[in-house]
């Protein structure tokens, strides 16, 4: 829920020397995004998309670093970041399976997808498998209602899901640890 502030204590990670905002991220934002807007603050969403893409979650330290970079206060950044559901403050599994639960998908049996996921991987929405491979989330409409039931696996849309097939596709994905940034899902 957008208006519930995330639990900052739970999201606490010890500080690390190596910055989350790498020189490469800073360069991309400076060169590509700053010229697009009249002020630096407007580059906040693009910046955090880059961070999400790189790490798969947003560390508290990254928020402080972003604040310094964008010339804002950490609270201003925190305020914006916690509003958006796609910006997650906690680590997830390598593959985040966002199953759509809105009306068209419910009409077309999204529940069967969740049941199969429970049966095969033993996880409920919000949980991650023990090997940190798959995180299951239930999300609101993905804008692909003609393909209901649908799910977003990391950045790839899967439509007209047949639960058993879908789960075996997920099982075949490489299980190497770490966050997957690229389109290696398909």
């Amino acid at each position, binding site marked *: 829920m957008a208006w519930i502030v995330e639990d900052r204590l739970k999201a606490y990670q010890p500080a690390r020397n190596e910055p989350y905002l790498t020189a490469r991220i800073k360069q991309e934002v400076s060169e590509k995004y700053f010229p697009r807007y009249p002020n630096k603050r407007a580059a906040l969403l693009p910046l955090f998309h880059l961070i999400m893409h790189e790490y798969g979650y947003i560390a508290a330290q990254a928020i402080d670093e972003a604040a310094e970079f964008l010339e804002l206060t950490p609270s201003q950044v925190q305020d914006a970041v916690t509003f958006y559901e796609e910006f997650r403050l906690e680590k997830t599994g390598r593959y985040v399976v966002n199953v759509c639960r809105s009306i068209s998908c419910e*009409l077309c049996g999204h529940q069967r997808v969740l049941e199969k996921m429970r049966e095969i991987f033993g996880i409920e929405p919000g949980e991650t498998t023990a090997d940190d491979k798959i995180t299951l989330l239930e999300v609101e409409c993905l804008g692909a209602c003609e393909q209901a039931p649908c799910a977003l696996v990391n950045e790839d849309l899967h439509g007209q899901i047949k639960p058993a097939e879908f789960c075996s596709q997920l099982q075949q994905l490489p299980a190497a640890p770490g966050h997957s940034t690229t389109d290696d899902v398909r």
Partner: protein
Amino acid sequence: MAYAGPVLLKRIPDDPAQRKLYRYADYIATGGYASLKKVLAMLPEDVIKLVVDSGLRGRGGAGFPCGTKWTFLPKDLFPRYLAVNFDESEPGTFKDRYLIDHDPHILLEGIAIAAFANKISTSYIYIRGEYHHEAKLLEAALAEAYEHGIFGQKHPGTDIVSHCYVHRGAGAYICGEETGLLESLEGKRGWPRIKPPFPAVAGAFAKPTIINNVETLACLPAIVEHGAAWFKTMGTPSSSGPKLFGVSGHVNKPGVFEEELGIKMSTLIEKYAGGVKGGKYRAAIPGGVSMGVLGTDQYDAELDFDIGRKYNVLGLGTAGVIVMNDKTDLVVMLRNIVRFFAHESCGQCTPCREGTAWMHKILNRIVDGFGQPQDFDVLAELCLTMGAMPGTTICGLADGANWAVKTFLQKFPEDFKSRLKSRQVQGVAVTGAVVA
């Protein structure tokens, strides 16, 4: 009424096997950017007049006349911005995604035309975060457009350089509300703003800003090519032009179909979407869940901007039709809709934040068999207290929630009342709800 084939989907064939992505060269080869060329030789005022004359109404949900919106820009106040609303988060709506998946340049041409007509310096395409693929498509299409001088050039006769960028949202329905979108564009949380000032006066970065839906802008090339009178030959007097209809739910062939406004819903479902699946028609949502529900006897409703007045729904909305057959549990479906609003309420206004959450709670207990006799009335009363129309909230999110609940209660009261009656609470026989 003379609809002679697709206008917006002219590059997207019915057969899925033949569909492909139109890149710049393909787009040019099929007559693309000819309208832009024509426009650049016109006066900006004449372009605005053309759009006003065409009667083009916004395709994003509210149906506000597009040309009129443009005339609200204060004279001599620059820079001006254009925000293209590609947030498309309303459940049941996927028309813009389908269009951009195959024909991104039709939008870019529309943006270029609008930018010229209104002397816009920068256009931002606000695309929802979940559309990863479409964001990449648009970035690629924009690179082509810049390469060929569609953007990055001065508007003829001015010193204003026209730019266009993609700005990705990050998963918030409320950012489809125009001022929520602007806040999000500025790098803040997407809380809708109190109006006035209206965006046309002080919008993005406190400068005059126009906000148009993707489909609205995609109509512009055709209007320029064929003229306002031609555009008006389609649709009804108050709702001119072609429209994209997305049909999903219990139909055999869900998808996006183009027809003129005013088409009967039954025609849309039977002729285009392959008929109702798994049973007979029971109910349908005409245009995204915030519009309310059409009853069993309203199968033949004409889908145009007058639908609200005629059939007791909020409006046409985004024309994302969701069909439900006679085996559907409507209470569960309403719970789904209300959960959506409770989840997506931005939390700024108390009636919406608390009201949607309470409606969800009440519907949950009705579904679980613990519905209390007064629940029907409590739901109905809640509907009257929240929203921009009763005047208790800043934006229309709560109106969407209350119209959904209100129309379900009005059109399918027995579905709810029977649940309340059938349960005995703590040994006391419940005799049934008192209904207004």
